[in-house]
């Protein structure tokens, strides 16, 4: 039950999938991720076919626009936040609620750092004249990276809600699947970013 109190000794293996509700959430988040795969594949394909395309005399190209140091720092932040949420799931398995909350909070902080850099990057581009409507290239770029950024925002709001709402509840079979699903979603955000930094930034710099 939602109100059953557990100790580390009575906490079941695979607690996040010990109940019907938990198993449903687990399959549900994955089916959502599959639909998200198709969404991102479409915006990636759009970006690749419109890369560097736009009105004649367009002054911006991927090779001149993108800066690797910023992309590198963003990649490191997001990759590390993926590991910290793995730590949170490790503590979830051991029924250490404090550990779950602390590591999820670190994940949120790293995610916020990533988001801040992305906002700075977008602001910088718009400031130098590379706005959303500037060219087919700029629209495709902001749609792709912005869709990922929106996923980061949703993930952050989701995890913060979990941390706040469950702060006094402690770990039980009702909220364990919720933490688990959020962590899987967060990893998926990282999966998409791996392709973004490779296809947009690294291959963009190559021209």
């Amino acid at each position, binding site marked *: *039950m*939602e109100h*059953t109190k*557990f*100790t*580390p*000794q*009575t906490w*079941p*293996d*695979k607690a996040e*999938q*010990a*109940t*019907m*509700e938990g*198993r*449903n959430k*687990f*399959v549900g988040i*994955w*089916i959502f*991720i*599959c*639909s998200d*795969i*198709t969404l991102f*594949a*479409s915006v*990636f*394909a759009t970006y*690749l*076919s*419109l890369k560097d395309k736009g009105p004649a005399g367009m002054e911006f190209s991927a090779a001149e626009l993108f800066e*690797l140091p910023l992309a*590198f720092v963003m990649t*490191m932040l997001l*990759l590390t936040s*993926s*590991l910290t949420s*793995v*730590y949170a799931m*490790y503590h979830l398995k*051991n029924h250490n609620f404090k550990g779950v909350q602390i590591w999820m909070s670190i994940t949120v902080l790293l995610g916020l750092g990533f988001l801040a850099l992305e906002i700075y990057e977008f602001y910088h581009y718009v400031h130098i004249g590379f706005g959303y409507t500037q060219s087919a290239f700029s629209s495709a770029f902001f749609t792709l990276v912005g869709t990922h950024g929106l996923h980061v925002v949703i993930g952050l709001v989701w995890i913060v809600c979990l941390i706040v709402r469950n702060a006094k509840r402690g770990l039980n*079979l*009702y909220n364990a699947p919720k933490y688990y699903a959020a962590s*899987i979603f967060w*990893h*998926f955000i*990282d*999966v998409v970013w*791996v*392709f973004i*930094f*490779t*296809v947009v930034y*690294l*291959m963009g*710099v*190559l021209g």
Partner: protein
Amino acid sequence: MGHDTHVQAKSKKQFEYDRHHNAMHMRKQVINFAIMIFLTFVAFAVVVADFSPYFIKPVILLLAGIQVVLQLYSFMHMDDKKASHMGVIATFVWSGVLIIFPVFLTFVTIIWW
């Protein structure tokens, strides 16, 4: 109802075994993370090192592919065969990839500006 399960205390031996098992699993995850960080460094390094783009592009795409498989199977637990409905999940993920790949291919080959 949906949140019900049978509550049973573990024996001391079982508890210690599970703790150890979890710790070992976490160590494996950290190693996988180290591999991902290393691959990221390599990807950035080959671009900065200024090799021929015909060499760099396939290499960094391959590195991205390895990283994604590591994420899916290690961090997102697709390697966990005992997880509920893992067969269904794997089918959905890979058929999603299979269905969208021709769309992707079409966009980058026969659509032009």
